[in-house]
């Protein structure tokens, strides 16, 4: 297969970092910036990544890809693929992952679908314990602890295992939901600094993902990195608590926010304004048909803390703030924008009431759409390459004008996407991203 032509460079060329910064300031750069792999919500499953790298001839057959995010099984895109696609964003995160072990000490592994990968040394799954043939994952890689996540047989990702202690509503303790919201360690700060120094010479925009202000993110709520989590850890119980125990939730967020802001201050003291944007929160507020929570619940329980975090970041740093929320969130967007976020991801246009033109018209001058580039529920996995190309062109035309758009798939590229569609996707990005886009 031929390498897609993704590098039509016009006469005025911007660096990647400038391109993204201009987009975030709602100014058209030379072309629409592209993100693949900048963060844990703009990445690609190892299965699809392996096939893409093979199709582009970047690796010899059988060369494993690194699993840099084991919860969603996201792969390390690599600087060669970033350059081949003309992507503009790289990411910096903490050394430890969702399961509480470090992304180092790599060892070979094979996924259920046969993809050769490298996983961190703490990736200690147990196949024998699950009678249905799935895999259990253990907090901090400790097989002596009860498992904290499971991947079903032939599955592609892990999901949290329910570990909910009985709840005594008369004696709720906020501390129980704070265990993982600890002060950031010096070792983590040193790691972040080293990573930033490594990435800066690339000229790419750096997206920071530190997880210190993710209030109510159900990826964090189960506490998969903790061996014996206390408090409210079952996801369904958490949603129930938003209605039944709002005072408790508010207090939890208040304390998490206090700790989070202290951590942000220490991170900023360490790395300054070297990152372009920071992923503030990944809490999903939308389902397929409607928001998961009422506008009143967002306003009362979440917005005060989002305002606090955005205000701190905007008054102490030059970072732009990035919110990830899947689903239909049209009814919440007035408040989300008012809370001060600079960028919205993934812009799930396949959800109800998330029409691209309506979004751009109403909010396009106030928030950058970091996503929305291609439907990952139907077109990318199940459409034809021609349909993929048409949608990319359409999204460039709708979201591109006036800047305020960073092209990304709607959430991570999932497993099971035909490689022809991936090639068509990035070829179309290359074809249609120069301004005027589309």
């Amino acid at each position, binding site marked *: 297969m031929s390498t897609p032509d993704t590098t039509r460079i016009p006469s005025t060329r911007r660096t990647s970092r400038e391109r993204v910064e201009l987009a975030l300031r709602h100014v058209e750069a030379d072309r629409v910036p592209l993100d693949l792999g900048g963060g844990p919500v703009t990445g690609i499953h190892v299965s699809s990544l392996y096939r893409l790298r093979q199709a582009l001839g970047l690796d010899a057959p059988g060369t494993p890809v690194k699993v840099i995010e084991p919860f969603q099984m996201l792969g390390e895109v690599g600087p060669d693929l970033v350059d081949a696609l003309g992507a503009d964003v790289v990411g910096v995160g903490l050394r430890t992952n969702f399961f509480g072990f470090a992304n180092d000490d790599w060892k070979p592994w094979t996924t259920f679908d046969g993809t050769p990968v490298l996983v961190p040394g703490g990736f200690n799954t147990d196949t024998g314990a699950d009678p*249905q043939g*799935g895999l259990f994952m253990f907090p901090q890689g400790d097989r002596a602890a009860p498992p904290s996540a*499971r991947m*079903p*047989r*032939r*599955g*592609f990702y892990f*999901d949290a295992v329910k570990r909910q202690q009985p709840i005594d509503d008369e004696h709720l303790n906020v501390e129980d939901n704070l265990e993982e919201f600890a002060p950031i360690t010096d070792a983590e700060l040193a790691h972040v600094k080293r990573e930033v120094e490594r990435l800066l010479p690339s000229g790419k925009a750096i997206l920071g993902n530190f997880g210190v202000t993710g209030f109510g993110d159900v990826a964090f709520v189960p506490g998969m990195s903790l061996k014996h989590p206390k408090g409210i850890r079952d*996801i*369904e119980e958490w*949603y*129930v*608590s*938003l*209605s*039944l125990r709002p005072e408790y939730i508010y207090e939890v967020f208040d304390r998490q926010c206090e700790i989070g802001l202290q951590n942000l201050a220490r991170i900023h003291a360490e790395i300054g304004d070297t990152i372009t944007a920071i992923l503030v929160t990944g809490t999903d507020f939308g*389902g*397929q*048909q*409607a*928001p*998961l*929570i*009422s506008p009143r*619940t967002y306003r009362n329980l979440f917005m005060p803390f989002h305002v606090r975090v955005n205000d701190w970041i905007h008054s102490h740093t030059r970072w732009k703030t990035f919110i990830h929320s899947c689903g239909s969130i049209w*009814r919440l967007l007035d408040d989300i924008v008012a809370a001060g976020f600079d960028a919205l991801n993934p812009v799930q246009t396949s959800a109800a009431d998330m029409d691209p033109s309506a979004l751009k018209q109403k909010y396009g001058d106030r928030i950058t759409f970091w996503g929305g580039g291609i439907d*990952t*529920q*139907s077109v990318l*996995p*199940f459409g034809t390459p021609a349909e993929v190309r048409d949608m990319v062109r359409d999204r460039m035309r709708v979201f591109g004008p006036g800047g305020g758009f960073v092209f990304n798939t709607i959430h991570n590229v*999932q*497993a*099971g996407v035909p490689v022809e569609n991936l090639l068509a996707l990035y070829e179309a990005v290359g074809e249609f991203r120069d301004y005027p886009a589309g």
Partner: protein
Amino acid sequence: MTIIPELREAVIDGRAKLAVTMVTQGLEQGIPAETLLQDGLIAAMKEVGQLFEEHEIYVPEMLVAARAMNAAVDVLKPQLVEHAVKSSGTVAIGTVQGDLHDIGKNLVAMMLKGSGFEVVDLGTDVPPERFVDAIRAGADVVAMSALLTTTMTSMKEVVEAISLAGLRDRVRIIVGGAPITARYATEIGADGYAPDASKAVRKVRELLTV
């Protein structure tokens, strides 16, 4: 007599302890269990479904109301069994093989139970054989949930397994979940699709109406 209206309000407001108190008092006062079920609980869940569809309430409030309803139904169950009150039908529900997501499926199960159906919850990561077994055990409806593009194809395998077992005519099949569409339901040979828990109840009722 204010028990029935108060019971309805207790369920709608998600007050489980109050709902249990109301059904207990209602039984003590000689109100038939079936009346408490139909006029109290099922009527309340109908209103909850309506409020949800009108975006007056959302998932947390639905879950809380459904839990209150469940708690009240558990009190009524022995009476309903004793008086041979028939359910509206039996629904076997599960998240398909390879998929562990269950909040949406749980909501549908709770809404069905609150609407007078017998619900057999097969859980998550359910292989096709278990859906087939559920039909042999008496299910009138098989309801499947999937959240992922990588697992929705398991739904087709279930429909095929049911056909291979010679049971396709004995059951109605309904599907749902974030990536699922009405078109996909038709494509795989299912009988129906619903985009949310409230509409799922209506669709099941419709499918079981001769």
